[in-house]
């Protein structure tokens, strides 16, 4: 369940919300004040009530007043925003680094011990620094409840940090448009008590967030799919997303296209490996080229085996 209140969700919430109240307060005051004056003038000085206009060309004192007052106010607001923003930029030295990887259209998180997950797990009351890496196009890491956002630019390092003060689950969205399934590119950050986090961190060697006490081989393959965010584009039930489904992948031959040539191919381990390491080598008919990145050096041989066993189990059902 996503938390509904954001009080203390991160160390920035109070400051940012304070700035919002300050800015919206002043803005709404001026909006209402000016609108009320305008409506009053329109009613009071309508032609039927005031047939003769008074000749007035201007008033220099007033011009100065309404130049100086807004200037002071906007400078105040600028200062407020700048000081709050500086806080967000100064990452504490003891922050726990987590690599956050974005690709069309999923996030994954890599911890210092090598653990990779599709959900972000963090301990409460601990500074976390997310090192942001984009593998293909622009993405943006956005955690609304924490009031943090940073674009993820391929080839450029960036990071954000936060410290959460409230246990719970919060949404992560991709805020920078990144193509077809942009609105489905999301994840969750789970804030755990310190000891629960420690226990989870030590136990998990494979990327699973639930039920991994009885990890059998089938679940291991499923875990691999989740770990690398494969399900953002491929399904197990035959639904057509950006990429082909895994359903019946081993039992049926598939028609693929390479350099305009169509041919049939059996999905053996060679094919699966090729599709993951060199995804644009051949494309399943009816799908677009260039959407998938190579996962060479990421997906291991062992994980490939686990995937094959999972696909096998899909065919048996």
């Amino acid at each position, binding site marked *: 369940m996503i938390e509904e209140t954001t009080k203390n969700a991160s160390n920035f919430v109070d400051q940012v919300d304070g*700035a919002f109240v300050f*800015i919206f307060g002043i*803005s709404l005051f001026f909006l209402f004040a000016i609108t009320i004056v305008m409506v009053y003038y329109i009613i009071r000085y309508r032609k039927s009530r005031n047939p003769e206009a008074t000749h007035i060309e201007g008033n220099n004192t007033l011009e100065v007043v309404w130049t100086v007052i807004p200037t002071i106010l906007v400078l105040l607001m600028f200062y407020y925003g700048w000081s709050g923003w500086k806080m*967000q930029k100064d990452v504490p030295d003891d922050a726990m680094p987590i690599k956050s990887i974005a690709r069309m259209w999923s996030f994954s998180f890599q911890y210092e011990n090598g653990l990779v997950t599709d959900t972000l797990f963090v301990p409460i009351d601990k500074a976390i620094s997310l090192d942001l890496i984009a593998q293909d196009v622009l993405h943006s890491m956005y955690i609304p409840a924490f009031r943090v*956002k940073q674009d993820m630019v391929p080839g450029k390092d960036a990071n954000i940090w936060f410290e959460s003060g409230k246990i719970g689950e919060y949404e992560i969205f991709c*805020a920078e*448009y990144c193509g077809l399934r942009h609105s489905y590119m999301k994840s969750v950050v789970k804030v755990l008590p310190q000891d629960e986090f420690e226990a989870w961190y030590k136990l998990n060697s494979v990327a699973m967030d639930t039920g991994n006490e009885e990890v059998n081989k089938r679940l291991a393959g499923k875990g691999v799919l989740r770990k690398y965010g494969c399900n953002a584009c491929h399904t197990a039930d035959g639904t057509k997303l950006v990429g082909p489904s895994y359903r019946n992948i081993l039992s049926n031959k598939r028609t693929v296209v390479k350099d305009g040539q169509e041919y049939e191919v059996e999905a053996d381990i060679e094919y699966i490996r090729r599709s993951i390491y060199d995804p644009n080598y051949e494309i399943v008919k009816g799908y677009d080229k260039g959407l998938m990145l190579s996962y060479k050096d990421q997906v291991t041989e062992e994980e490939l085996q686990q995937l094959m066993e999972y696909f096998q189990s899909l065919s048996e059902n």
Partner: protein
Amino acid sequence: MSQQESTQTHVSFRDYKGRYKGLFAWIFSTDHKRIGLLYLYSIITFFITGVLLGIAMKLELISPGKTVMDPATYNAVFTLHGVIMIFLVVVPGLPAVFGNFFLPIMIGAKDVAFPRLNLLSWWVYVLGALVALSSLFMAGGPPDTGWTFYAPYSFKTNTNMLPAVLGAFILGFSSILTGINFVVTIHRLRAPGMNWLKMPLFPWTLYGTGWIQILATPIVGITLLMIVGERLFNIGFFDPALGGDPILYQHLFWIYSHPAVYIMILPAMGAISEIIPTFANKSIFGYKAVVISTLAIAFVGYFVWGHHMFTSGMSGTALYTFSLLTMLVAIPSAIKVFNWVSTMHKASIQLEPPFFWAASFLFVFMIGGLSGIALGVLTTNVHLHDTAFVVAHFHFIVFGGVGFAFMGAIHYWFPKIWGRMYNTKIATTGWMMFFIGFCILYLPMFLLGIQGMPRRYYDYVDRFHGPNIISTMGSWVLFVGLAVIIINLIRSAKKGEIATKDPWGGKTLEWTVDSPPTLENFEEIPVVEKGPYDYR
């Protein structure tokens, strides 16, 4: 032109017989008034297309999951909506239509300085529009990148991004030509006695706009050429895969596209500055302050583009410099609002449709401007950036500001252009529905943004459902209001009562000539002795 024709002094420009007949008499005419109307008809066609695309988007968003279209279509629809509305409607918008028609008349000239160049700029506009929209008919379909064409996604997509980019490039030239024409016209063709400080405010804003068009538009041309070079010849400017820098693209794009916002809004402010004194029957309050603030907006507006990129990863120094400059640009806008409202003080206000549009312009423009403050301040921007809040903000400025001013202008100058009066009751009804629909449509999007809903979202989580339903319903009310307005105007252009020279009691020069004006506007060039808004 034969001797006999040039002596026909009271034939309106619409009835005037030139070298060509029928359609050719329009598309080959160098008369600034006919060119203004050519722009009007083209822009309205594109505007209605853009509106229908917008309605389709809102319909899709009325509920989570798929409603009427799949994500690929939705992404193409919001891209086309943006490209059409920005490049084909709002940027040419007021300057090309009302600037062309009224700038020469308001400064006491027979035409713009370069009438043939003026016709060329319309032709270039049409060519650019056709190229931009040609992608609709190509395999792969229209682009799905958003109107910003951000790299590197725009280099990876399989849709036709290049035609749209080339179209925008060509449209840029149309904009530059119009800018040059207007700046020269204002410098060279003002009537005797009309010194700079006796010039009405609409020409003043066109002057500021002209300079932005001349100086800023080439940047987008260069950028778009670099994209072409990158896509066709693999030169790595922007794509990191080729060694380029995506942030460089954003800088170049916004160096043009931010001043473009001022190309849109300055003439809108100019039109409002004409409407308010006329209907208040009173001189504009603080003429000089309004002129200075116009120039200040045009100038400072060049240096604030970075506020579109606060979360892109620019250096800290760049961030707070841009934030500070953005705050400063709020001040001249505030000065204008104070002067407009003060003009109504002790006035004698005629409550007619153009005035309703102007007053509601002030309201929506204030919401647009004030919401911009939260976006210009760094810490609040981080939360709001790339959310529905931004979409609401710029629709309040671009559709609220520019759109309301355009509507105000067309209702204000209608009797002058067509020589007939429209039904003011129906026009008021249309305005009210449009205004209410507008608020219902866009106000909930502020809330959605604060709650964290990112923009360009085909689908959303359940907690965003409520405001989205209200917003979509607003789009229907707005659409009905728009239909009422357009039908009323089309009918009145043919069947309305014949209008006099000066139905509203305006004091600027266009109200001294025939309705509709003759080919050369003035029987003899007027000599100007008084300021533009002398109601004594």
